[in-house]
């Protein structure tokens, strides 16, 4: 039964996109050539066109977009880790009665529309937005600081949106940490900072990897945030795909972009699977 869902909602759409990605471009409906044509009632002609993939490889635009997406996602992941780890640690160490409330507060933004929250950032970051108006009224600056349509805004948007995905797995891992291990380390002569890196980090590594992958994988394909907050030069693969699809009406190339992106993400996805599998294995 679960396999039926998997087939219906994952395998079939994937195969459709794969099929389109190896078709030729065509004007009209549908905007791609059929894969299989029947020449006679018994012979069929299968045309697999790999030109789309070659096109991706040759044009620098796509290579840059892929590279930029991975870079942006990676930097955002690291930022999420640096901000999220102290948050998760703080929540895990407070009184148990407060923890649920704090976790709820971390989750609360998800109750509002993602799109609206990104728009809210526009209102905060724009030239006559919240921050600039505040700073100018105090007198710290004369001219507004350009924050919108920059790489900074994209990082801010991604880190803000994906932080809960980092905090929650980290919290789970940190909460499981046996405090007596840190006492034992101190007893044996280990100073607190060193104990953090030799005991706490290795033992919460599963949470770190899980959180990182949960941020990195979707961030690579992120479209809304770079579209609304980013400038024309922070081109990410999600936006490229959108433009191929809607502006150029080139479904085959768009599909090829999507499949290629999936291939890029195969390695991180496998890492995530492996870590989650290991965590389940050591649970007793």
């Amino acid at each position, binding site marked *: 039964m679960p396999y039926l869902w998997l087939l219906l909602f994952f395998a079939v759409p994937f195969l459709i996109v794969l099929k389109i990605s190896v078709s030729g471009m065509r004007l009209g409906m549908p905007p791609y050539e059929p894969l299989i044509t029947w020449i006679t009632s018994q012979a069929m002609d299968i045309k697999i066109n790999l030109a789309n993939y070659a096109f991706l490889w040759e044009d620098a635009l796509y290579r840059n977009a892929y590279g930029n997406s991975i870079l942006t996602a990676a930097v955002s992941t690291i930022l999420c880790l640096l901000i999220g780890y102290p948050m998760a640690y703080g929540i895990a160490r407070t009184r148990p009665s407060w923890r649920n409330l704090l976790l709820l507060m971390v989750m609360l933004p998800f109750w509002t529309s993602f799109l609206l929250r990104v728009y809210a950032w526009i209102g905060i970051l724009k030239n006559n937005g919240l921050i600039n108006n505040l700073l100018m009224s105090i007198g710290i600056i004369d001219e507004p600081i350009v924050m919108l349509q920059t790489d900074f805004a994209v990082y801010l948007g991604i880190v803000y949106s994906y932080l809960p995905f980092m905090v929650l797995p980290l919290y789970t891992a940190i909460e499981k940490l*046996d405090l*007596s*291990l840190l*006492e*034992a*380390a*101190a*007893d*044996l*002569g*280990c*100073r607190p900072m*060193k104990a953090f890196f030799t*005991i706490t980090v*290795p*033992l919460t590594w599963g949470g770190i990897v899980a959180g990182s992958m949960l941020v990195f994988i979707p961030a690579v394909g992120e479209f809304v945030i770079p579209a609304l907050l980013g400038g024309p030069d922070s081109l990410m693969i999600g936006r490229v795909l959108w433009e191929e699809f809607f502006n150029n009406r080139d479904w085959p190339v768009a599909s090829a972009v999507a499949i290629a992106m999936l291939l890029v993400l195969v390695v991180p996805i496998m890492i995530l699977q492996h870590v989650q599998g290991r965590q389940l294995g*050591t649970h007793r």
Partner: protein
Amino acid sequence: MTNARPAQRSEPWKEPGAVPYVRLDKLTKKFGDFVAVDDVSLQIFRGEIFCLLGGSGCGKTTLLRMMAGFEQPTSGSIWIDGVDVTAIPPYERPVNMMFQSYALFPHMSVEQNVAFGLRQDRVPGREIAERVGEMLDLVHMRQFAGRKPHQLSGGQRQRVALARSLVKRPKLLLLDEPLAALDKKLRQYTQFELINIQETLGVTFVVVTHDQEEAMTLASRIGVMNHGEIVQVGTPTDIYEYPGSRFVADFIGSVNMFEGHLIEDEPDYVRVASAELGGVFHVGHGVSAAPNATVWVALRPEKIRISREPPDSKGDNCVAGVVSEIAYLGDQSIYLVRLEGGRQVRVTQPNTLRHTGVDRISWDEPVWLSWDSSSPVVVTQ
């Protein structure tokens, strides 16, 4: 390697002018209004195995954690080898601890666990390997050096924890219920192992336990704790045979406690009349109490003789009763004897002869209980 063991263990606490290795000076720990440790002062001598014995919540673990440095005392001080360590954090004290849960680092092998403390001190690699190997040999765990903690049994983990806590040759080793997680047979074996290791290395041990047998076996001296206070300090013999209070007498082993009042008080004996007993105790030691004072007499079950015939010298120190319950434990039998006044007395007898063919005392038989005048202990509080 080992010296010939002295015929008798030294008893440094008896030597006048002996300097204690560890000194706790009026230690108090309060959590809000709750007083966990109440004005505790102790002297522990070098090479001792000192046991803190008490029930749950008596403060013994808090006291141990203060010695380790994990809790700051509300007042008082801790001195180790002449140095006031009260304000020194745990990673700088010459003290190591063996945790009740062992607290082995799960992501490190046995060898890495044991080497951990030495690495913190930046001991050179070759020396680490040598000392770790030595310690693993001592606890018979050399062949498991590469294993991780989750691949070991409970007893094996305990030995690794012990090795890890001793490898730095601490001045003081604190053990928190070291044998609690082991099954009975393993516990008995490990008790003697622990003593051997301690004697080989000469480290001063402080052990926290709620198990009397553990305390009696391991300890050179025991400190009995109740409600945050040290109630009595002494050797196992002292504690058992000369309890200073009803609490201690009742806490260690089984005891029959009778309330009575002094009718005769001489320097070398006292006589106590007890309505509960329905008779008179003639106790062969003096007692400092007011005349006619209410006292309690503690009589250990194994000190009582049980017989069908009345003892030759009737009068003090004997009483008649009827057997109401018998428990056969193999090595000994426990008899509950009901006295005329309704009071039940617990008597134990070793089964020195095998059961078959012996005419044993049975239920509902009338019997006589008697004991030496040296057996009862009078306590005044």
